C-alpha cells in the first residue's frame, strides 16, 4: 500500500479528476479522505500500486489543472488505521422504500 497526499484547489471536477487517474487504471480506492487544508483542500489516498504506477499517477495528478502538490510515500500506519476504521463503518442503505425513507428523515 502507498499513501498519496494531494493538495488541490477545490474547483469543479478536480477531486474527480484525481480519483479517475486511479480508477482508469483499474486501481481500487480502499481509502479516500478529502478535507479542507488552510485555503485549499487535501485528499489522502491509500492505494495498492506498483512503483511504475506510483510514477504515472503522480505525473497525471501534477498535470491536473488545479492540483497544487503531490506527495507519495510508503504506507503510514496512522493513515492505515484511519482507513481500517472506515472499513468497519456501516454504509447507508442505497435504496429504501419511500415510507422508510420518510420515517428516517422525520
Amino acid at each position: 500500500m502507498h499513501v498519496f497526499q494531494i493538495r488541490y484547489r477545490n474547483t469543479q471536477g478536480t477531486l474527480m479528476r484525481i480519483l479517475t487517474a486511479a480508477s482508469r487504471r483499474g486501481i481500487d480506492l480502499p481509502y479516500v479522505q478529502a478535507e479542507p487544508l488552510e485555503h485549499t483542500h487535501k485528499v489522502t489516498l491509500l492505494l495498492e500500486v506498483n512503483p511504475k504506477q506510483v510514477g504515472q499517477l503522480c505525473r497525471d495528478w501534477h498535470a491536473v489543472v488545479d492540483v497544487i502538490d503531490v506527495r507519495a510515500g510508503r504506507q503510514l500506519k496512522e493513515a492505515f488505521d484511519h482507513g481500517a476504521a472506515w472499513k468497519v463503518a456501516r454504509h447507508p442503505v442505497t435504496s429504501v422504500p419511500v415510507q422508510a425513507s420518510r420515517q428516517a428523515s422525520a
Partner: protein
Amino acid sequence: MLKGAQIVLRCLRAEGVDLVFGYPGGAIMPLYDALEDSGVRHVLTRHEQGAVFAAEGYARSTGKVGVAIATSGPGATNLVTGIADAKMDSVPLVCITGQVRTPLIGTDAFQETDVFGLTLSLTKWSRLVRTGEEIPEVIAQAFYWARSGRPGPVMIDIPVDLLKASTEFSGPTEFQPHLKPAAVATDSTFCDTAIALLQQAKKPVALVGAGVKLSGAVADLRRVLDHLQVPTFATVHGLGAVSPERPYYLGMVGMHGTRAANLALNETDLLLVFGARLDDRVTGEPTRFAPHARIVHFEIDPGQLDRVRPCELSVIGDLAHTIPTFYEALTRVSLTDWSAWRAIASGPDRAEPDSRGLAQPTIRFIDELFHQLPADSTLVVDVGQHQMWAAQRYRSSSARSFITSGGLGAMGFALPAAIGVQLANPDKTVVSISGDGGFQMNIQELATVKRLGLPIKMVVVDNKYLGMVRQWQELFYQRNYAETDMSDNPNFVAIAYAYGINGQRLRADSVSGFEIPAETSEQIEKFLASPHPELLVFECPPEANVYPMVAPGAALSEMLFEEE
C-alpha cells in the same frame, strides 16, 4: 445588462474567435438567437461530430483554439469522440454545450446528460456554469487552459436559463492562473547532462513528435538536428517537422515505419525524444523498446515522461525554450563524429523494398497525387490503411500540412476536419483522403462542403473492406474476415452528385499487372485544378496490405514485409 448568450459571444470575440462550428438544439437556442451581428461566424455542420472535427481541423492547421457548439443531451454526447481526439493529439479546443434549465439539472430532464461528468477524464478543464455573472471568467479560463502548456480540450456547459437571463456585464475578463511551483527547465543546467550523454554515445538518434510543431520550435529543432547530424525519424504527427531532404532523416518510425528508422531505434544507445508521447504505435512492445538506449526526453507535459521506462534525463518545459537553450550549449562544445553510424543507419541495405504486391496501385496513385500537389497544400487524412500509405509516402517539410487523427484513430475525421482546414486556409489546396469505411462515417458533411462552396478535394480510397481491420484478420486471425466486407458500398460518385458535388472514379483493376490507369495523371490534374469541391474515388485491390508492419507485441526490429 446583457443576456448570458450575448456575454458568451462577446467573450468569444475577446478571445479572438471569429469562427465556430456547431449544431443547434433546444438548450443552446439562446446562443444561436444572439449570433446575428455578434461578429462570430457560425458554420452549421450536419452532425455534432462533424462540428467538433471541423473545429479540430481549424485548430490543427492554425494553432488557434477551435470552438464547437452543441445542445444538451445527444448534442453534447456527439462531441465526445472529438474531445477525446483533441486530448490525444493535443489540440486546443473549446466545446460549449447547452444544458437543461438549472432547476431541472439532475432530474433526468429531456435531453439532459451529465456531459461534465462524461468528459472529466477527456478534458483538461471543464465547468458547469452556475450563474450568469461567472460567464466571462469561465470563458477566459477555458481559453487559457486550452492554449496553455500541452494544448487540449476544455468544456463549458451552460444551462439554458443562464443563456436567456440578463446579467450585468462589465466586459471580458483576463484570467490570471495560480502558478504551480516551477517544475520546468528554466535554466540551462540540463544541457550539461544532455551533452555528456551525447559525448558518451556511439549510436545516438533523434525522434521528433508533434510537440515540436505545437511549441513552434520547428526551426530551432532543425538547427539542432543539422548540428548533430544524427539519424532522425518522426512520429506520424511529427511528419513535416524535419525536411525529408536531409540525409540523416530516415522517415516515419513505428508500427508502419520505415525499415531504417525502426532498426536505428532498435540499435541506438542514446535516444533524444523531442515532443513525443511514445505511445505503443511508436514503441512496439514497450518492454522491448530501444533496448540499448538511454533516453533524453524533451517534453512540456510531465505526465508523458517515463511512461515506457525511466528516462536518463527529462527536460520538462516548452520546447520553444528548451530546444534553443540546448542548441546554444551544443554550439559551444565539440561533438563526436557519428558519420559512420549515420552511414550504417541510412545504408542501402536498409532502404525500403519496392512494393511488389497488391498495394502497388494505391501507392502509385498516392505518389502521383502528392507529386501534383501544390507546395503549400494541406493533407487531411482519415484512419486506416490509406492513412499509413499516405504517411509513408509524405514528403513535405511544411509543419502543419499533414493532419490526421493519430492518437485516437477516429474514423470519419478527415472530411469534417478538412472543412475546418479549408475555412482557415481559403486560398490553399486542401485534400482529404479517406477510406470507404471512414468516408461513410461522416458522409453527411458533403452537405456542409456544398453549402459553403469549399473547394476541398476529397479522395476516397475504396477497397470495399475495412482495410486495416481486414489486414489484421488476414495476418493474425487466420483470414477470418468477420464483418469487414463492404463490397456493397454505395456509389460514392452518385452520392456526391446528389449533394451537388462533382465526382469521378478511377479503377486500379481496369488494367492488368496492378498498374494504375493510364489516365490517372490527367484526372488528378483536373481534380486538383477545379475551383469547386470534387470527389475522386480510387477503387483499388481489396486485399492489399500496408508494409512494413510490426505485429502487436513484437519489437520494432521484427518487421513484417511483403512476401515476394
